[in-house]
């Protein structure tokens, strides 16, 4: 019961991270395309400037929560995914300073440099995050002591010898890239005016068609390579609410405008992530080939005392966080 509760708490925090930091990653992906001059790029950056850092905190908080609730999963997956995680760290560093340092120097050389770093790091991060989720769905070659180590790539086939990147995880990475590009475009369209807004809406529209196609491809591929997803959806039909939420979100992204279009995109991302979480449950890191070595919420979680006491500070903590977010988004400078 407690491990299951923490499973959903961590999943919800990761979903909050994707929905929130996702829009500023997406803004990074598209800003070179939709903002043509320095003033327009500043408009895009102002749309995320005061909140991006708070959004990224969801990643750290989710990481910390994962660490204490599922220490075995944390140690196994972080060391096994060593190389891609280090690359993610370097990208997060570059992206953070690109946003923060850009406006400190007024120069026609300084600004484009950081704009480029911001775009490239945002795009690569989206791809890596998608590929990471793909790796979790596909599973990894866990040994009996819950260890593994994956090279970046091998022969790009889905097998026990697969690397971080195979055709499936690349597809997941590309889907994440397009999904966050659309998400960011809808946020920018909601927060900006005039030419930038019009171009952002155009970008979202073009990304949408691609996203529908990729969602269909990725979903069928996922059910193909991870049999546990099929079992979960068969055993618990209520789980279908999550894919339905994602579909409703997709529909809303195409029809609504402004705030509602952005919220639809949040629904799409949340629905997709919740589908994965519900489909994998109770597994947190499946093993390829040898199901007995898979990590589940039962063999990867901390003691029940730790999980109980965790609730005692987590619940009031999250109420505070909700308060901060409501307050800061309300005082968002327009």
């Amino acid at each position, binding site marked *: 019961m407690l491990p299951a509760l923490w499973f959903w708490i961590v999943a919800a925090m990761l979903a909050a991270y994707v929905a929130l930091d996702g829009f500023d990653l997406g803004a990074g992906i598209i800003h070179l395309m939709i903002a043509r001059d320095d003033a327009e790029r500043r408009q895009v950056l102002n749309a995320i400037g005061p909140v991006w850092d708070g959004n990224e905190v969801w990643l750290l908080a989710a990481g910390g929560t994962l660490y204490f609730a599922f220490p075995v999963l944390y*140690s196994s997956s972080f060391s096994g995914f060593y190389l891609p995680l280090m690359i993610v760290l370097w990208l997060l560093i570059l992206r953070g300073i690109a946003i923060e340092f850009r406006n400190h120097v007024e120069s026609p050389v300084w600004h484009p440099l950081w704009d480029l770093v911001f775009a490239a790091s945002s795009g690569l991060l989206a791809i890596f995050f998608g590929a990471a989720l793909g790796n979790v769905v596909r599973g990894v070659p866990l040994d009996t002591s819950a260890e593994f180590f994956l090279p970046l790539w091998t022969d790009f086939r889905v097998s026990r010898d697969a690397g971080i990147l195979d055709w499936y995880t690349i597809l997941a990475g590309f889907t994440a890239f397009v999904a966050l590009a659309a998400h960011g475009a809808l946020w920018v369209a909601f927060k900006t005016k005039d030419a930038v807004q019009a171009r952002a809406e155009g970008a979202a529209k073009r990304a949408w068609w691609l996203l529908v196609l990729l969602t269909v491809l990725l979903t069928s591929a996922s059910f193909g390579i991870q049999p546990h997803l099929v079992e979960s959806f068969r055993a618990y039909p209520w789980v279908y609410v999550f894919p339905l939420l994602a579909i409703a979100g997709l529909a809303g992204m195409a029809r609504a405008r402004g705030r509602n279009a952005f919220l639809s995109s949040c629904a799409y991302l949340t629905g997709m992530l919740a589908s994965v979480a519900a489909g994998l449950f109770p597994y947190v890191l499946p093993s390829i080939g040898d199901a007995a070595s898979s990590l589940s919420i039962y063999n990867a979680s901390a003691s029940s005392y730790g999980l109980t006491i965790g609730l005692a500070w987590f619940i009031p903590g999250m109420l505070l966080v909700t308060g901060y977010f409501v307050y800061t988004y309300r005082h968002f400078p327009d």
Partner: protein
Amino acid sequence: MDALTIHRLHFAFTVTFHYLFPQLTMGLALLIVVLKTIALRTGDEHYHTAARFWARIFAINFAVGVVTGIPMEFQFGTNWARFSKAAGGVIGQTLAMEGVFSFFLESSFLGLFLYGEKRLPPFAHWIAAFLVFLGSWLSGFFIIATNAWMQHPVGYGIGQNGEIVLMSFAGLIFNGWTFWQYLHNMTGAVVTASFAMAATGAYYLLADRDLDFGRTFVRVGVVAAGIASCLMLYPTGDGQGRNIAYHQPVTLAAMEGLFETEHGAPIAILGQPDMERQRLDNPLLVPNALSFLTYQRWKATVRGLNSFPRENWPDNVPLLYYSYHIMVGLGTIFIAILALEWLALWRGRLYSSRPLLWILMLSVPFPYIATTAGWTTAELGRQPWVVYGLMRTAQGSSQNVSAGNALFTLIGFMGMYLVLGILFLFLVSREIARGPSGEHA
């Protein structure tokens, strides 16, 4: 190099570089609250402008602190998987609490503090500054509580698979070790920030520009640095020393370079540990001082390294000895310098005394060195354990990450941080050159 050495260097390098930034963040957050409080109470625009100037430097420093902090959390899993697997259920608590209680607070209100001054009433803006301060000091607390548990594990049990299980949350949070270590560390952050502020003020006075601000920065900086430097020595340094004497006596012996057990042990002011002959070369000793400081009795017995099994000695005694001595030596020099500066300030001569201003301006790197040496003492002193007495460092690293892969990422971080350091210095020196009044833009 073997994989363990590289994993240790990996963490040592990234955490040392990282902590150059939070120490200024935490100290400066307090000093900005001080400036904002004076501004609010006197209504003097001068102090608002001063606070705004330091907020600009704070923002640059904070950004580097944030981006270099993320790798710290990750590395527990990536490079220290066996340690995390065993102890994650305990130290994960405090690390997760840092995210929930301090990072959200800091990041939410820093945006409001930096961008919201025009739209917020003055008191609300003060609150934003205060909450940034609170967030950063809470963050320090959770990290120290984590480190304190590794130095002095309490409130735990051992589970079925050999993992360390949390048994008492109160024990973890109110670990006796945390109290002095936290105060010592936070006071150190204030020393760094107040020296930075005083040095900047001294530069303006020496350069004959922004004189009003120069005087304010020197005054606030010197007063704060004086108070904080004294608190470093007593009671926080003394308390932390006693933590070590009672719970890590072998570490105390190594820090002091004491090889043989002595009744009435001396303190070595100078001297180099000679590990082959097991003695201190050319020592300059204060007789009985170590016994007195540790046990308040001149003839108390202090155990030397040789009375402990060799496998429990910290694995790098000379480096531990030097870092400890550099920390204490610098701390003593700070107090001496600040006594002179206080005297001149009190007599009203500080702003025109060029030698004293030069000393202040050139002093800025030394608190950073002292802090780094202090943390090196704490971390080397804990060796050969990752969790003192429970788990050896050699048993904590990730076995599945090879030496080659770890070296690749260590080199990557070195390159990345070199660039970050250059960018930081470039941007901060631009802000200082531009000045608080903005007249030198």
